[in-house]
């Protein structure tokens, strides 16, 4: 299968010193859902902005749907769809007017436009609100409209930047159901950025984990989880736990023991059978335990494995904080009209 997206040594440096994206290379096959997973500030949106000709790279090259992303930006924009993480629909226009405008901008043939708009409205459950101003839309409706605008021209490659940010679980599930259907019908390639681990795990064919502008791991979700090496039992001693590490290493089936934030992370093929042995080893050494927990291989573990830190321990405002801020800002704007 051909590559829909190819990035080679893509780098973005801001203000001459801040490396937001650090020489990343990857490829996405046609028809694939490829996820960029990482915490806030990891470089996800910067990468997506470069691939969609919104941002010029400092160095490196990228081709999308066979076009050089930086040499043919207008042709590229014609072939791709882009769903931003915030609502970009015009608040003072109706849902239908927004879609008709998008159809004109993306060159949907004039004769096909009414049918295409109607179909999308029906499909995305926006028909009843089609002629309402977007400023009266709920968050979920805005997200669906954003998706409709992104796919009005049946793009070959769809870019989704944190598309379900701020949606409740039901809204997220509905959004992904539509994407799955679209992809099944049209074979569209989807590149998405997300910081929702479950979303990346459940939706993506392949994932790249990005941290501090670098891809630290890439593969299918199961490949990545396999690399963790089975279950992880976290053992938290009450005191210093002197001698516990050696005792844990000596237990049968343990593949590795690492220390993190006062806890031992013990990897093994089956955590359930190991836990009684862990407790026994601690008791034998006279070490009281504050807690023992078992974690199945998950992307959270994968992230911890490859970056050395918990996925959500990054500093600064979270995506939820940003969503709340945007929502309040928009409410304030509406209130002052």
């Amino acid at each position, binding site marked *: 299968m051909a590559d829909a997206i190819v990035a080679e040594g893509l780098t973005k440096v801001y203000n001459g010193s801040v490396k937001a994206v650090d020489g990343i290379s990857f490829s996405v096959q046609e028809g694939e859902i490829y996820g960029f997973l990482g915490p806030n500030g990891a470089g996800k949106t910067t990468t997506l902005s470069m691939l969609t000709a*919104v*941002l010029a790279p400092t160095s490196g090259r990228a081709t999308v749907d066979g076009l050089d992303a930086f040499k043919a930006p207008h042709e590229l924009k014609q072939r791709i769809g882009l769903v*931003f993480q915030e609502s970009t629909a015009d608040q003072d226009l109706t849902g239908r007017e927004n879609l*008709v*405008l*998008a159809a004109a*901008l993306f*060159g949907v043939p004039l004769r096909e436009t009414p049918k295409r708009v109607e179909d999308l409205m029906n499909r995305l459950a926006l028909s009843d609100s089609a002629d309402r101003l977007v400023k009266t839309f709920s968050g979920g409706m805005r997200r669906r409209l954003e998706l409709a605008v992104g796919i009005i021209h049946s793009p070959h490659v769809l870019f989704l930047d944190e598309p379900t940010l701020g949606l409740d679980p039901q809204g997220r599930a509905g959004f992904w159901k539509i994407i799955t259907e679209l992809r099944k019908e049209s074979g569209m390639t989807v590149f998405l950025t997300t910081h929702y681990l479950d979303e990346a795990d459940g939706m993506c064919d392949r994932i790249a984990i990005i941290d501090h502008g670098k891809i630290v791991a890439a593969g299918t979700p199961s490949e990545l989880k396999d690399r963790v090496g089975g279950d992880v039992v976290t053992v938290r001693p009450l005191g210093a736990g002197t001698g516990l590490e050696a005792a844990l290493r000596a237990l049968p089936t343990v593949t590795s023991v690492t220390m993190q934030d006062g806890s031992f992370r013990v990897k093994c093929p089956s955590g359930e059978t190991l836990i009684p042995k862990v407790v026994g080893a601690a008791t034998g050494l006279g070490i009281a335990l504050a807690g023992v927990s078992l974690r199945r291989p998950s992307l959270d573990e994968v992230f911890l494995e490859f970056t050395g830190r918990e996925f959500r321990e990054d500093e600064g405002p979270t995506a939820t904080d940003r969503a709340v801020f945007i929502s309040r800002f928009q409410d304030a704007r509406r209130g002052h009209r």
Partner: protein
Amino acid sequence: MNVRRWSALTKRELLKIARNPAAIVTSLMLPILYLILFGQGFNFTSFLNSPYLSPAQRLQLLNQYLLGAPDYFSYFAAGMVGFVCVTATLFVGANVIFDKLFGSLKRTAASPATATDIFGARLVAGSIQPVGLAFLVLGLAILLGDVGLSGLHISATVTVAGAAEVVVAILLLSLMFAALFLALGFTIDQPQTYFALVNAINLPVLLTSAALYPWGAMPAWLQGIASYNPITLAVEVLRINFFGDAFYPYAAWVYLLGLIGWFAAMFAVATLLTRRALAPKV
């Protein structure tokens, strides 16, 4: 430029204007207040009704100060059109900043629409409103004369060609200021900075024009500056057609040429800045 994209974007702008009547009312309020308060209060022509002045002396003074206008209010009412073109077009730049803040410009910039499509649509839509408002203000100024207040008296016969000159002058002035404010809107990201800059431009431009001042009362150095001011060029076209060309050094088309020059210069700068602002960020 792609005609379909451009017309779709222009329609969007016009819909937004139509759905925001508060902005239209606000744009009208200031000129109405100027007509009713400032225009009536400053209609100093009554001072010329002195028994010590002969009718010939009175006419001579009137023509010296007001270049053929029958009274200050009529002279001033034509000048208010320049004021309307400035105040009504400043919203086009502000709308660009709000569209940046609320994301819709990001959406348009990510589409295949070119900078020319985006700029052209905003320029045209943003210039239609001031032209309409300018004629509303002129109509109101005429009506004021029918309700016992000073009103606009058009003392010359306005020909079809003259009326066309008036429309073109108002349109060119609106286009020129719309281009200027669009350039600022695309370049500046913060509304506070934009409005501060607009205030710093508006008042000096208005006060160095012949929109409000009686020409004969202006010192020679100010007349020199005002002669090249685009607002002066536009309102002189109106005054020539409303009150006759006897006291003007050039025909109306010469002033229109000057306005075309101003618009062309502003258009060139604005398209350059817009292209730069909408290009992929470096």
